[in-house]
């Protein structure tokens, strides 16, 4: 059998095989355009090799011409697919050059069919047998077609295009595949051009054997592609392995999460979809088949908690990234449970939120414990209030009522004695002396109370105003919540510490806040607010104001509210404000009350700022 036939047939067969394989690859993965283009290139190669064989074995000049004419379709396919391959595989090359190559080659193909016998010859006059690889093959002799330059120009442009693309790929760092494919293609373009010029312009007398160099290129391209495929399959295998591992760790994670009672929620912002674990669904009272939508989920949140949750989510979405929230979920059954949720928002390349993942768990029990602790705190606060203010008040009331009672009875007796015909003046004198004595006694009691606070009870030191206000607010916060009263704090930043007794000042503040809340209670108002504001009141003074949105103080009572035993409350002792007043005065401050122009009462007191030495 002829060596040429074997060589050319085998090359064609190999090319076709590679073409088929890569076509199949493309069929499975439509994005693998490089494989499709390579498949086309290999098909073109096989076709061209077939044409070459036919030409070498041509019987007549006309047959040679016809085969050459049709071979140009294969050449067109080769050029165009190579351009595409280079663009897609190397991801380089100037588009205008690519378009120029394709355009010129297409023009050449058109000319091939319109001018002369084919692109290369006006007319083939005769066939000339030559010896090639120890065999006799035919080469053509005829009038060259000058339009052939278009085709050769396209090959030269192809050479430039590929060389440019290869350099780009090389610079980019794609040293291996880029060089092999690019270099091979450059070689092909160069050889093709040279051969075309030398053969068809009758410079050398050899048969058209371009397919040999093309097959070499096919081999290089095929090798690169298949090594890519091997690499891809290797990656795929690794991915599968890691997926198995991932699945395993995911499973472990899921188990841990479920065991800890956490529910998982994933929200995809771009697709507006939500996915939740069974545990999460159970937490929020959704069945396994319920479709999850943000609006529906929000419906399950307690109305009072929605605004706060929206705010937290919005902050996380607008760049904060993470969030941590506690809220109540209201189940369809009416059951209310406390949920603690932690989440993380992931952003896409453009910085827009893409995905949010969160874990939620039931913290009802924890909340109950917290509430119990709060109740306890409140009781302690109450006891504290009672033990200090209340007990003191009760003791004072008893002590003061004794002399006052005696004065009253003595006066009444004296009145009766005076009604006698001859009043016992001695007795009346004694009575008056007793009255004077008891008055002194009552005065002493009050002085003692003041002295008590002034002398030893005040343990003064630097007290941070924000801490003072914060701690007292924390004490009454749950009480306020139960009474549906909004507690507003407005403590100016960076206030210097005041100089005073923390416990006594807490008692005063507590007393004023509770008074404010009581005022709202009696008023039964819609707008229920108690606000505590603290700020500078001069270079050496800080003022703290406790204001309420209650009915305010009656003008006629404003003057008496700091008198002992004066009270407007049904079971008030009338001692809170006098004691508070005494405490503040003992601190060198002032305590006064006023009605606010916007309604409600405001109790204000001043305290001296701690000296630098005292705060150290």
């Amino acid at each position, binding site marked *: 059998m002829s060596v040429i036939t074997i060589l050319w047939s085998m090359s064609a067969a190999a090319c076709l095989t590679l073409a088929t394989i890569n076509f199949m690859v493309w069929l499975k993965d439509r994005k693998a355009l490089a494989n499709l283009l390579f498949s086309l290139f290999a098909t073109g190669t096989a076709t061209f090799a077939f044409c070459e064989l036919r030409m070498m074995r041509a019987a007549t000049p006309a047959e040679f011409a016809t085969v050459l004419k049709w071979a140009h379709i294969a050449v067109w396919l080769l050029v165009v697919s190579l351009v595409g391959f280079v663009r897609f595989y190397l991801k380089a090359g100037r588009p205008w050059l690519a378009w120029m190559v394709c355009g010129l080659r297409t023009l050449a193909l058109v000319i091939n069919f319109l001018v002369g016998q084919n692109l290369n010859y006006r007319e083939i006059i005769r066939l000339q047998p030559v010896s090639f690889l120890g065999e006799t093959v035919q080469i053509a002799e005829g009038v060259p077609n000058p339009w052939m330059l278009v085709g050769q120009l396209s090959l030269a442009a192809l050479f430039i295009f590929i060389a440019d693309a290869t350099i780009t790929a090389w610079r980019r760092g794609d040293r291996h595949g880029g060089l092999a494919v690019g270099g091979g293609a450059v070689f092909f373009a160069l050889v093709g051009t040279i051969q075309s010029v030398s053969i068809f312009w009758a410079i050398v007398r050899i048969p058209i054997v371009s397919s040999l160099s093309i097959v070499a290129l096919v081999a290089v391209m095929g090798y690169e592609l298949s090594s890519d495929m091997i690499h891809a399959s290797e990656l795929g295998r690794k991915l599968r392995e890691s997926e198995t591992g991932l699945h395993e760790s995911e499973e472990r994670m899921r188990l841990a999460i479920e065991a800890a009672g956490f529910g998982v929620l994933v929200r995809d912002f771009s697709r507006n979809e939500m996915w939740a674990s069974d545990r999460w669904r159970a937490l929020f009272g959704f069945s396994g088949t319920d479709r999850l939508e943000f609006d529906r989920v929000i419906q399950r949140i307690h109305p009072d908690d929605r605004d706060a949750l929206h705010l937290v989510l919005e902050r996380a979405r607008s760049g904060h990234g993470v969030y941590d929230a506690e809220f109540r979920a209201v189940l369809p059954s009416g059951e209310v449970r406390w949920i603690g949720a932690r989440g993380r928002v992931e952003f896409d390349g453009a910085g827009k939120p893409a995905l949010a993942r969160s874990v939620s768990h039931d913290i009802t029990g924890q909340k109950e414990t917290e509430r119990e602790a709060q109740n306890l705190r409140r009781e302690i606060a109450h006891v504290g209030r009672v033990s200090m203010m209340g007990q003191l008040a*009760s003791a004072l*009331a*008893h*002590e*003061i*009522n*004794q*002399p*006052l*009672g*005696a*004065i*009253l*009875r*003595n006066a*009444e*007796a004296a009145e*009766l*004695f005076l009604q006698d015909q001859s009043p016992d003046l001695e*007795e009346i004198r004694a*009575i008056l002396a*007793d009255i004077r*004595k*008891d008055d002194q*006694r009552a005065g002493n009691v009050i002085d003692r109370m003041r002295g008590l606070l002034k002398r030893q009870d005040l343990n003064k030191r630097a007290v941070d105003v924000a801490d003072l206000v914060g701690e007292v607010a924390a004490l009454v916060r749950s009480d306020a919540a139960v009474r549906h009263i909004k507690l507003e704090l407005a403590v100016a930043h960076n206030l210097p510490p005041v100089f005073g007794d923390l416990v006594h000042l807490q008692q005063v503040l507590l007393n004023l806040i509770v008074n404010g809340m009581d005022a709202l209670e009696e008023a039964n108002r819609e707008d229920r607010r108690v606000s505590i504001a603290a700020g500078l009141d001069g270079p050496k003074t800080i003022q703290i104001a406790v204001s309420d949105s209650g009915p305010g103080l009656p003008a006629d009572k404003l003057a008496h509210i700091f008198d002992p035993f004066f009270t407007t409350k049904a079971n008030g002792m009338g001692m809170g404000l006098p004691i508070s007043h005494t405490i503040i005065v003992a601190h060198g401050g002032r305590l006064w009350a006023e009605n606010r122009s916007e309604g409600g009462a405001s109790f204000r007191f001043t305290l001296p700022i701690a000296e630098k030495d005292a705060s150290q």
Partner: protein
Amino acid sequence: MSVTVPIVHVVDDDASFLTAVSRLLRANGFSVKTYSSAHKFLAQRDADAPGCVLADLQMPEMSGLDLQAALAQTSNPLPILFLTGHGDIPSSVQAMRDGAEDFLEKRAPKEQLLDAVTRAIARDSCEREARDRQRELRVLFDTLTDREREVLAHVVQGRLNKQIAWDLGIHERTVKLHRTAITTKLQVQSVAELTHLTQEAGIFEELIHTFPKGQ
């Protein structure tokens, strides 16, 4: 039983108030005795004398409530009025439940105080009368023999002679004799009168209690 003037016993640890209130009471015509503690009052008082007690609720050592309890144990528990510097509800409830005549603040209006004292003395007088009558009747009832008391117990239950005879295992005629003796000794005319007297003497329960013994 000598007829004596009722005395208002004022008990308060506050000497000044003690003097003042006694002055007012005296000026209003009451006889007053003052004590600076509950112990002193219990030790010094004339157990039989009529009157009432006006005591401070809050006193050291023995409080007003303690005094009330101690007084209730005696044969002549005087009505007690409480005074307090500042009315506190739990102790006032306790005091009223234990039969306090009244509960007054130290600075209560004069009229309230005087009315309360007058009322307490009147109540003491009523109770005293009832107690005296009871004592007299008890002396009368003590003249009955055991058998007569036994028959009496049946009679006040409204039982017929025949039944009593059967129950006690004696002749009906004997029952009739006992009944005559009883009415003579107790100076009553009818069964109704007899029943009333028994109740007044406060021995009705006692008699009922002896009843099963006869069976």
